[in-house]
């Protein structure tokens, strides 16, 4: 246990505080989904939680008949729209609460029935404790409070959430292949190619977005790839979501982690099998 943990007065003082009745004043009660450890990690880098903020977006598209080298433009745009609406909803709430950013984001993509997709985001809005100009553009991130702490200590700032979405079609397999009658091992090069070009286009979009924010790079990219094989629709969806970051005024700060040799044994797996 780190020595700092024993530094607060302890349980007697804590229980004593509960004996005196609490008088709710004009204080603003902060709401967060942080653990207390994360709360302290934020305080360490000069931020405090304000409120829970959330955003949501839904979009649908035509089931498109796709084959080799068709792009599901409307389809891809619908997915991007759903994520973008959730993202801008979050930023709008940050403005409304005069917050500087959001951390500990819960990001979910939910497939509704058929060709509908809902994207939701929920996180804790934070404010700088010593506020400077105050009218800087609030940042959105998909980072946890811990990663945000590390990022700031490393000399970087989040610029915003960036996304890349692409849907690319591929040719249907031959009748023999799809019936399972083919007896040779062969690469389905059309499908491999579709996946490659979907990746390329999605990452290109993400880079474009990051560039627009003046970012130096993108961290914590989450990828979701889904092949769709329906009667006349053969396509691959590629979704990438990450946090664009830029270097702060002091540049990169080396964290110089200490190597640690843990004395713990590996967890016993006798009963896990």
């Amino acid at each position, binding site marked *: 246990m780190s020595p700092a943990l024993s*530094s607060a007065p302890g*349980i007697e003082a804590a*229980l004593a*505080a509960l004996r005196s009745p609490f008088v709710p004043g004009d204080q603003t009660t902060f*709401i967060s989904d942080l653990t207390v450890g994360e709360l302290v990690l934020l305080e360490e880098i000069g931020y405090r939680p304000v409120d829970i903020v959330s955003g949501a977006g839904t*979009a649908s598209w035509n089931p498109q008949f796709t084959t080799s080298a068709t792009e599901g433009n409307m389809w891809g745009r619908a997915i991007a729209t759903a994520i973008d609406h959730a993202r801008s*909803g979050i930023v709008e709430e940050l403005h409304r609460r005069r917050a500087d950013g959001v951390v500990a984001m819960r990001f979910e993509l939910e497939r509704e029935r058929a060709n509908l997709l809902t994207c939701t985001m929920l996180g804790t809005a934070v404010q700088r404790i010593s506020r400077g100009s105050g009218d800087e553009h609030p940042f959105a991130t998909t980072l946890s409070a811990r990663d945000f702490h590390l990022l700031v200590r490393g000399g970087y700032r989040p610029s915003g959430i960036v996304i890349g979405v692409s849907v690319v079609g591929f040719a249907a397999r031959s009748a023999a292949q799809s019936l399972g009658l083919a007896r040779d091992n062969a690469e389905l090069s059309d499908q491999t190619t579709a996946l490659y070009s979907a990746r390329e286009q999605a990452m290109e979009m993400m880079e474009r977005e990051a560039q627009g924010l003046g970012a130096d790079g993108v961290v914590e990219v989450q990828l979701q790839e889904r092949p769709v094989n329906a009667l006349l629709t053969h396509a691959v969806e590629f979704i990438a979501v990450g946090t664009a970051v830029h270097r702060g005024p002091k540049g990169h700060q080396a964290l110089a982690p200490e*190597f640690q*040799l843990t004395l713990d044994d590996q967890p016993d797996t006798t009963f896990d099998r």
Partner: protein
Amino acid sequence: MVASAPDSGSARPADADGGIGDLAFHPVSRERRTWTSDLSVAEAAAVRRVGLVPAGFVMGTAVMQLAATGGQVFGQWGGLGGPSVGGGGGYSESYPCAHSYAIGGGIGFGGTAGGAAEHYGFNIEDAVLAASLTEGYRLAIGRLRDEATEVGAHGVVGVDLLFENLVGSTGTATFFARGTAVKHPGGAPLPSPFLTNASGQHFERLIALGYVPAGIAVGVGSVYVQPNCQSRGDFTVPGSNQQIPRAILVARARARDSLAAMAHRVGEGVVHTEWTDRRVNRYAESWDQLTVAVGTSVRRYSTEAPPLDPRPVLPLRP
């Protein structure tokens, strides 16, 4: 609802010996031979490091008939599919058919005045259902606290709240609150034991960092959704959809507001909030968009904790 106010929860008569209110089935005052807990070994160790010892596993439960309109026939909650009435003017929005059938007196289907709708949709806040759920949690939490008081505890850590459609049929829900009561040996009793949904280790951090849990805060929001054609996934009207995200956002906002209102009365802030978004199917294609938020309201009892400046470490073996 205020979980930490001593008078909320069950209506226990002062002279009751083992009943919850006028229900006498609950053997609260049985002789406890040893302490029980649902703490892991590491949690138990963390609680002991703080200076508390486990006093016993405690639980509160309540089976509720949920408020619903009409006969208890359809849907998971019962009710004929519409939202519970009498909620008192909350949020509502209509989402007419996204096809333009109504234009020009109805081309295509129908052709009646105003046109026929393919699927007419609406969102209505269901404040009655939200109140039902809140009441269920309030009872369960109150009974948990009564049990904790009974075993002379100063608090309860690791409180889990859940609800299920376990007992009974449609239109009912079973609420549970359970956790481990802890006490400070030799300490004078508190007016009401503290409650937290934080684990033993997180509780240890709270105390060490100068915060004390004051109580559990619960917020519930509910919006009844009758999807229009677009929200059903009708592929002839693609595009950006407002109905589903609005339902989610309003349910979350209501949960947030009631959580905040409750937390404001007992502490300075809320940590460890667990958010649950749930879709509860009702009649046919409609559903209740439900948000439940449970957190721990905290007070700062000391500002003596020095800056931590946590050291980055890199374990050589995971």
